[in-house]
Each structure stands twice: as C-alpha cells, then as structure tokens.
C-alpha cells in the first residue's frame, strides 16, 4: 500500500537512487580535485560553479523529485528562483571598482 498524495513518486527502484547518490558524491569529489589544480581564480570559479550547478540539478530533480511535479509548477519554481538569483548579480561592477579602482574595461581604468 502506498500513501502517495502528490505527483512526485518516491517508490521507484533503489538502483536509480544509488546511481544519483554516487554521481553527486563523485561530483563533490571533483570539486576537491579542482581546488588543487594550478589554474587562475576565475577558471577555478567557473569550474566549481559548473559542477555545483550539475550537483544541485541532480538533487532537485531526483532527491526532491521536482521533475515528477506538474510542468507548470516546475516552470514556476525555475523561473522565479533563477530570476531572483540573476537579479542579485547587479552589483558586481562595484566589486571590481573596489579591486581595480574602476569597473573592468572602463575608460576610467584606462585613463588612470
């Protein structure tokens, strides 16, 4: 007997759960390997971010079962979350101003 009361199904086989778990562990391990690569900070940041996004995607789709919910709900969660996270990025130029004395490639930086 199951007591499933939503679209998401948690009663599938063990094998898929274990494969996803192993994939996430391997990806987490990969981040530790990247940390000791001799690459510049931005390359490292890019690689770490890419791996973290894949890990998070696996967790959301297979552990949180978002993929089994209604398509409208998946779109709502994805659009709303990504919009908010994207909107948070507006201040980075000021961070570069702190570091360089100007935003990257700005005429102020070139002149000084």
């Amino acid at each position, binding site marked *: *007997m*199951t*007591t*499933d*009361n*939503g*679209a*998401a199904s*948690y*009663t599938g086989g063990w094998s898929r*759960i*274990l494969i996803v*778990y192993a994939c*996430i*562990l391997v990806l*987490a391990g990969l*981040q*530790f390997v*990247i*940390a*000791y690569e001799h690459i510049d*900070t931005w390359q*490292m*940041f890019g690689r*770490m*971010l890419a*791996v*973290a996004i894949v*890990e*998070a995607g696996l*967790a*959301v789709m297979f*552990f*949180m079962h978002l993929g089994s*919910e*209604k398509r*409208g*709900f998946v779109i*709502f*969660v994805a659009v*709303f*979350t990504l919009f*908010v*996270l994207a909107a*948070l*990025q507006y*201040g*980075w130029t*000021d*961070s*570069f*101003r*702190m*570091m360089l004395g100007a935003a990257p490639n700005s005429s102020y930086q070139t002149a000084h």
Partner: protein
Amino acid sequence: MSQVDAMAVHSTGHAESSSPFAIPTKKLAMWLFIISDAATFGACLVAYGFLRNGTPNWPTPFKFSPTVINTMAMTFILITSSLTMLLGVRAAKLADKTMALGWVYLTAALGAVFALLHLREWLGMIHEGVRLFQNPWGSGLFGAAFFSVTGLHLLHVTAGVLALVAVGLRYKQGRYHADDIEILGLYWHFVDLVWMFVVPFVYLMNVAR
C-alpha cells in the same frame, strides 16, 4: 444530478482551484519557503563573493589537514544523509513505519554529526585567532563573511535535526503521515543542496597553496 452529487462536484472543483499546481498545500508552502531561502543563501553567497573579489588581501588559510579533510567528511555525511532521508520517505510512502522511522532518525543522527564537525571546525579557527572583524592573515572581513555564510547553513542543519526528531516522534504517534515526512525531506535535501555551493566558494576557493 442530485443535490448531493452537485455538492460533491462543487466541492471537488473548489478543492482543485484552492490547490495550485495540484500540489498539497503543505508541500507548496515548503517549496515557496525553499525558493525564498534559496534567495537568502544566494544573497549571502553573492555578498561573500563581492567582498572576496573586491578585497586584495583576502586570506586563503585553509590547509589540507585539518580543514579540507574535515570538509570532505562533512560533505560525505550530508550527501549520505540526503540518501537516508530519501529512503525514509520511500519507506513512509510504502507504509513501512518502522523502516521510515529508522531512516529518519539515522538522518537526524548524521545531521547532528555534521553539526558537531562544523562546530569543531569553527572552534579550530577561533583558536587560530579568527574573529568576526579580525584574523591573523589578511582582511578583517574574512571572519564576518565566513561565519555568516557557514553559520546560516549550520542554523539550517540544526533546525533540520530538531525538525526530523519532532516529526519522527509525531509520525510514530500517528499524528503525522508519510506526506509530512516527504515535506521535511524537501527541506533536508535543500540544506544539502546549499552545502554544494558553500563548500566550493567558501572553503575550496580559499585553500592554502
């Protein structure tokens, strides 16, 4: 159509319209909380990145031993706790109450171990002289940024452990059901998911070379 049938149809229609995306209300509330919490953690991590990028003498103090090894262990424990949580939800959905409780309590125990390792990490850093606005290595902002981000995550883990025990006890008493375990599982997986971003950006980008 009888009056009773008409009322049933009306009642069903009302239930659907009051349950957006055909998701149970409690589950929808948890998803909305997760979205807002993702924005909170996103803001914290962006602020951390902002400070790190804009501060020339940002410290990179984390040595392989003990910090990176400790972080590896914490990551393994938290990801494994997500697996045990998933197995707990699965058992609850299959109405295997004993197994479900076992997995839920094991998840709580793993969460508690994670929190203890985290506290040990903090105490080690405090012992080395790291404070909110000063440290022996460089920019004084490092301590504030580090303790804010990891502290917010530790707070979530601690709250999750307490919630796992509380929901487990109520599930055992029959006051909560499989759906409540599932909803708590969403929260726990989210806490795990956030750690996947905290580890690379707060720890691994700051390893000593």
